[in-house]
Structures are given as structure tokens and as C-alpha cells.
């Protein structure tokens, strides 16, 4: 018999806000244990939650990017359960009126295009982290992550293979990064997902027994886990190796196996109810329209525009549109210098190299596009040669304060000189200082000229048109 797999995903994404969802503590990843905490996010009595407006901005942005309807009155609710990483023993989340509902995400796999329906997106606070110390047999709790804002994106069970799941996650990641909702780094846990999976005979309209694997945080682990679960389910159905029950399972990526954590009977009753300390958030037209207007162009639309209108190659367009930071920089620089190809070259080769050397990701590009455009323009106009322009670019990456490329070039003697008298002087001196090289050149050794050319260039600090220097040098040697 042939089987089909039915998968729904719950994807948690940490939002890119400066501060936490209900207090002003930093929401940054890392830091010393319990450094980013206050009485509010530690659950001390007497502190009241005040909603961080930026969290709602990003929740709405995510909803709009995933084609959802936005609930214009959205509310927060409490979800109760005991765990030491949850300081109030309740999590503030959205149960009754989540910020966004009924969305649609398009994916593409080897089997073609498909639309995945989104049930809802809700905003909530993250929990803290437990650190287990086997040496002293104790557990320690770090509340830095407590109340860091999250959205949970709940899909309908529209996915049917590991390949589709990966395509869906990559699509979510691309859209959310583009809209600056989150950096979606699975390895740092800022994107993680729960996989709900069941298997049924192909063509059946009845769903099989569903199991859930929680907190998956790498694409390869997700692929392996789905393949393992599908095989386990089919084995159970066909060979009766075990009785499938609705349960939560944990994936052990080292052993390549999933293990039962808890089943439906022992699952908690979360006792949801509206949080009386948080007034319903009413999204008026001005707020709604402001967010709508701030949405970025979808990456594939940008890509098509870069190719069709700006004449970039597919290769260049792909590289640029992989990151919102690159697109923003590219577009701003293009506006100043007018050459898409030049800007693409500078970004893809020079800037990418510098980022690699600094071990930064493309999303961490902080370069001001307008300044980059000015630099490229200086270069295109022949006012600064490429070598010196690269030095200025490096300085733009390193400097704490903004750099004005023209002023910097002027101050550091990087402006290409039209002073032919100075050039002739330098050429005369260099030729006189190396008669052997001149003789070698005249004797047919083309390369011998390079040494003299290099010395001249160095003497002129690179501030000349190489073509003109070459011509003048040849002319001088000929005249000897």
C-alpha cells in the first residue's frame, strides 16, 4: 500500500526587538547569566506587564508578509503550567484573538509550486533556560531569555514531505528576514519548530494518529526526524510493531531516534484566560496603514526587477536578494552612482570579502548605501583609482563615525592627479635608477617594465591613471 504524510508546523520566531515584550530589559541573545533581568521578567509580585509596541508592529508585519488577515483588536491571554524556567508559572500569549489569521505562503519544490495555509500567528513571551550541572547534580535557571518576544506561526496540515517542510521553513525565513521581523537563526534558537505528523493510506480522507516533535532547530535534524517518524508510523500500521498514540516526542539527533515524552492523557490543561492586566490592543487605520506601507518588496519580485530593469545577471541578483541588508545598500548606492553592475560588483566581491574576513553574515552589513554610491562614483569618474577606493571602503567598514569618501580621499592624498609634470619627473628618476631593467625591456623582456611601472605608481601614491602612466613611461623609454 502507498502512504501519504500529513504535516503541520508550529514555528517559533524570536522578534528582532531591542527590549523584551513586557519590560525594558534587553532582548539580546547571550550575555552573562541573569544579566538581562528585572523584577518583572523574574515574576516578582507587583510588576505589571506593559506591551512593547514594537512587538505588535512586528507581529503585524509578519502577518502581512504571510498574507494573513490582521485582527484589528488583538488580546493577550495567560497560559498556566509549572516549570522552573517559567517564573510566573504562566506564559502570556495570545489564545482568543491572535494578531494575524488565515494566511498563505507559496513554496516551490522539485514537485512544483504549492500554497501552504497559515492558521494563525500569535505573539507571546519566551521562557528562560535551564542549565543542568551533572557534577553537582543541580539545575540552574537563566532568565535572560524570559519574556523575549516571540511569534508562533501555526500552519494548517498542508505539508506532505520533508522537502516541503524545508522549502516552507526557508520561505518563512527569507520573508521574515526581509521584513526585519527576526534574524531567524536556527542555531541560536531564534527560529525553532514543532512538527505535527501523521500518516494515512494514499487517498484516504481520514487522518492517522498524530505525533508532535518539539523544539527542532536544524534543517537537517528536521529532515531526519520526519523521515524517521514516517517510517516508524508506516511500520506500526503495516507490521503492528507498536501501537501509535497521540503524544509529544523528543528527537535525539545523535541517536537518530524519537522518544515518547508525554501522551494525551498526561498532557496539561493550560487553563487559558484573558490577561486582565493587558488591555486589548486596538490597531487603528493609521497604525495598520503605516505598517502596510513599510513592508518590503518580496525578494523574488526584487530579483525579477534587478534582472529585467537593471540588467543584472541572475547570479548577481540571487546573491543580492539573499539579504535585505544587501538589497537596501544596493538600491541606495545605485541611486547615487547610476550603475547597477558596478554596485553589484562592489557588494558581491569587495564587501562580501570584507564580511568574510570579519566573520560576519550578510545580514550584518551595516554599510550606508548612499556613501557606497558616492565612493563608486568617485571611482567611475576616475577621481580615485580602484586600489585606493578599496582602502576607503575598508575604512568605511572599520570606522565608528560615518566617512565622506570625497573628503577622506582628499585628506589622504587619494585624488588622482592630472599633474603630468610630476609624472614625468617620477618616470625620469625611476628609469635613471634602474638601467638594468630598461636594458632588459629593450632586450625583449616585457616583464622588466613592470618593476619600473610599480615604482612610479608607488611614488605617485597610486594617484594617476594607470593607462596614462604606462603610455608616458613607454614614450620616455623610447626617447632614450
Amino acid at each position, binding site marked *: 500500500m502507498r502512504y501519504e504524510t500529513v504535516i503541520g508546523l508550529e514555528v517559533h520566531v524570536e522578534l528582532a526587538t531591542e527590549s523584551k515584550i513586557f519590560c525594558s530589559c534587553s532582548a539580546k541573545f547571550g550575555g552573562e547569566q541573569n544579566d538581562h533581568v528585572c523584577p518583572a521578567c523574574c515574576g516578582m509580585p507587583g510588576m505589571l506587564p506593559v506591551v512593547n509596541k514594537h512587538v505588535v508592529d512586528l507581529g503585524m508585519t509578519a502577518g502581512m508578509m504571510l498574507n494573513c488577515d490582521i485582527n484589528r483588536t488583538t488580546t493577550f491571554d495567560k497560559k498556566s503550567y509549572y516549570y522552573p524556567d517559567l517564573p510566573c*508559572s504562566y506564559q502570556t500569549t495570545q489564545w482568543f484573538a491572535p494578531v494575524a489569521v488565515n494566511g498563505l505562503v507559496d513554496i516551490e519544490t522539485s514537485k512544483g509550486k504549492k500554497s501552504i495555509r497559515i492558521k494563525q500567528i500569535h505573539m507571546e513571551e519566551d521562557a528562560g533556560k535551564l542549565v543542568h550541572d551533572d557534577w553537582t547534580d543541580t539545575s540552574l535557571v537563566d532568565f535572560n531569555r524570559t519574556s523575549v518576544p516571540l511569534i508562533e506561526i501555526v500552519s494548517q496540515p498542508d505539508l506532505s514531505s520533508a522537502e516541503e517542510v524545508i522549502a516552507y521553513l526557508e520561505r518563512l525565513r527569507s520573508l521574515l528576514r526581509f521584513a526585519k521581523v527576526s534574524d531567524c537563526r536556527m542555531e541560536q534558537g531564534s527560529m525553532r519548530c514543532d512538527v505535527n505528523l501523521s500518516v494515512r493510506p494514499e487517498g484516504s480522507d481520514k487522518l492517522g494518529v498524530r505525533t508532535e516533535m518539539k523544539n527542532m532547530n536544524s534543517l537537517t535534524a528536521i529532515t531526519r526526524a520526519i523521515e524517521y517518524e514516517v517510517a516508524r508510523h508506516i511500520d506500526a500500521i503495516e507490521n503492528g510493531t507498536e501501537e501509535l498514540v497521540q503524544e509529544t516526542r523528543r528527537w535525539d539527533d545523535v541517536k537518530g531516534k524519537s522518544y515518547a515524552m508525554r501522551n494525551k492523557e498526561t498532557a496539561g490543561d493550560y487553563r487559558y484566560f484573558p490577561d486582565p492586566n493587558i488591555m486589548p490592543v486596538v490597531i487603528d487605520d493609521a497604525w495598520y496603514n503605516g505598517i502596510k506601507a513599510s513592508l518590503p518588496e518580496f525578494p523574488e519580485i526584487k530579483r525579477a526587477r534587478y534582472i529585467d530593469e537593471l540588467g543584472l545577471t541572475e547570479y548577481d541578483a540571487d546573491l543580492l536578494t539573499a539579504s535585505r541588508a544587501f538589497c537596501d545598500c544596493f538600491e541606495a548606492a545605485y541611486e547615487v552612482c547610476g550603475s547597477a553592475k558596478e554596485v553589484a560588483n562592489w557588494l558581491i566581491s569587495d564587501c562580501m570579502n570584507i564580511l568574510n574576513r570579519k566573520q560576519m553574515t550578510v545580514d550584518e552589513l551595516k554599510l550606508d548605501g548612499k556613501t557606497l554610491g558616492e565612493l563608486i562614483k568617485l571611482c567611475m569618474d576616475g577621481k580615485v583609482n580602484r586600489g585606493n577606493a578599496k582602502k576607503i571602503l575598508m575604512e568605511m567598514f572599520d570606522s565608528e563615525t560615518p566617512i565622506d569618501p570625497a573628503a577622506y580621499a582628499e585628506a589622504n592624498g587619494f585624488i588622482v592627479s592630472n599633474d603630468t609634470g610630476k609624472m614625468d619627473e617620477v618616470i625620469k628618476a625611476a628609469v635613471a635608477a634602474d638601467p638594468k631593467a630598461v636594458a632588459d625591456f629593450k632586450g625583449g623582456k616585457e616583464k622588466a617594465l613592470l618593476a619600473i611601472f610599480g615604482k612610479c605608481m608607488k611614488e605617485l601614491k597610486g594617484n594617476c591613471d594607470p593607462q596614462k602612466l604606462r603610455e608616458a613611461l613607454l614614450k620616455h623609454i623610447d626617447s632614450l
Partner: protein
Amino acid sequence: MKLYLAKNENVTSPAVVLDDMILTSDLPTTGGSMMLDNYMSLFGADIIEKLTKAGYAIAGKANVGEFGIDLVGETSYYGAVTDDKGNLSSASAELVKSGDVLAAIGLDVNGAGRRAAAMNGLVYVKPTYGTVSRYGTIPAACSGETVSVSAKTVSDCKAVLASIVGHDDKDGTSLPEEKCELVKTSAASLKKVAVIKSLTKDIDADTAAKLDAVKASLTAAGVTVEEIDCDVLAYAKTAWGILMCAELCNNVSRYDGVKYGHRSENYKTIGELYTNSRTEAFGELTKTAILYGSETLSDDNYMPVYDKSLRIRRVIIEAFASLHAEYDAVIIPASSKAAYTEADINANKYISFDEALYTAPASISGLPSVVAGGVQLIGKAFSENTLFEAAKIIEEGK
């Protein structure tokens, strides 16, 4: 008998006492619970700054029923408070009555302060919900609890309230400043009041006499006093009981013995740590509320019980709105009888829930309530000045 759970030395006049539901950073705050015995907060309530700025000294912290949910003063870990006749009273009411302090600031969760004020002949105000910051108060039933003031005279009560009213960014339910100001600035308008007959059926002779005296004073001052029925207000008792217990159950879930508060010495697993710490440190009424509250929030009961209570809240707010369209204030007793002893409580552990028949309508609706002459006057939002004017007439009519 402990009236003060903590006390400041060399307190200047005028001084106010804070119920031990209000967090202070220089004195311990217990919420009347063993769970928070000797708990030192890292911060103080917003109102403390406002009181200090207005020139009031903080005398100390008054004993309260555990988490403020009792109604008759019976559940403090530090022992019950009785008056000189042995009747259950409240520490803050005793301190005001004796003149030890000018006024007492409390957190009105279930109306214990209103009952105590009525019993002791004090003036008491529970202002419009959202006009006084709850930042730095121990949370019990957040959707209705309100910082309150009691004093011997109307003018003292009014002045102390005026000093703490105001918007606070740290409290998401705090109303905008211009709304808060209305508590102080809206003009009094007292022409016609209604006594809710359906809530006077079960009161004792003493309470009935107080009600008659209030009616007489108001009538003598030219206020029209009418008696009407409004049966729906009686549903507030059960609905508020459900909301209050559910919210309390959720709010006290943070006391798990892990980070602060009482931790049992008897545990091997994390489950035992939670269970034994809570079993040891919570009093009986709190445990009852936890069981009741978790039951009403369970999957099976949420819609038929909790959600229904939220809808009853709307019905009661609407009932008050139509009453207030015609009447400037609604008068109901603050309790069926003034005097309860510990023996009464031991005989019937549900008095705290039953007596809420009188206090719950104002708690669930968030409307301002003033106690004077032993009865309770409920007005529309921001009508505190109207209620104080009635209280003044009652005060002078004595």
C-alpha cells in the same frame, strides 16, 4: 494581636498605614501569607512616592487577610484582628479608629476594607478602576482590585485619595491622566439616589438601622431617596467569586518556592518542592480559591463558567449604567451584619463568599464605591465627588 506587621520608627504626622498588600522596598511585605513571610521587595508601589510627595509619612504595614481575598478578616497568617468586643475587624480599620494614623491605604480585592469601614463607622473610598496605579501591589484579582483609602472623616479620605490618583506608565490598565483627573475635578451632582431593595432583605436590625439613618440624612438634605429592585446585581457575588478565584489561582502560581518565598525543607523532586512549599505556606481560604479557580478555568468549564462570568460582568455594568442614568448614586449595605466572630467563621467557612453579595457589585464593575454611615454608595465612573458629597451629608447628619 498583630495590627502592624512592620513599622517605621519616628513617624511624623500626618501618617498613613499601608495594608500589607502594598509593596515597600524598606519594610517587608507579606500579603498576610506565610508564603511571603519576611519577603523584601526590590521596589515599592507607585503610590508610595505620591503619598510621600504629598507630605504623608508611612507609619508601617497593616496585617491583612491572606492576599486580600477574605471579607471578614479571618485568614491572615499573622492571626485574626478583632475589635474591643471580640468581633472580627481589620488591622487598618483599628489603626484608623484609634487615631494611630490619619488614613489607611488598602487593596480592595473582595471588599474586606468596605465591610470593616462600615462596621467601624469609618469613611472609605474604592475609586474608579484604573485611576490609581496598581504598580507594586501584590496581585490577587487584577481585573477588579483597586487601591482604596479609609479615614475617620470625609475630608481626610478625600484628600488622601486626591494625593494618589493619577496615570502611571508602569500600569497598563492605568487610565490617561485627563481621565484620572476627573476623580478630583468632576462636579458633584446629588439630587436623586436609589436604595436597592433586593439587597436589603437579609440584613440584620443593626444594619437596617444604619441604612434608615442614611436615608433620613439624605432626605433631610433635599436628596430624593427612592427604593427600587435590581435583581441582576445579586449575580455579581457568584460571578466575581469565579473571576476572583481564577485570577488569584493564576497570580499565586508564581509562588513556587523556587525563586523567593517559602520553600519546604521536605522535597526530593521538583514536583515535591512545588507541592510541599505551597501546601505548607498557603492558608485554607487561598487553597479553596486555588482549587475553585483552576476548576473554573479548566477546558471543560471555561465557556460555561468563566466566560459566562465575564458576560455577567457586562450585564452588571449595563445594569449600573441604566441605574446611573436616573440616579446619582446607588445605595446598598456593605454586609448583612457588622459583627462576625471567629466562631462564626469556624461554623461557616464560606462567609467570605456569601457576604460578597454586598461587595461584589462594585468589585466586578470597577465603579467607585464610598462607605459612609455604615452603608455603601456606588456611583458611575469618576463620580467620586458626588459620592463624597453624600458622605458629607451623612457625616453631618450623625
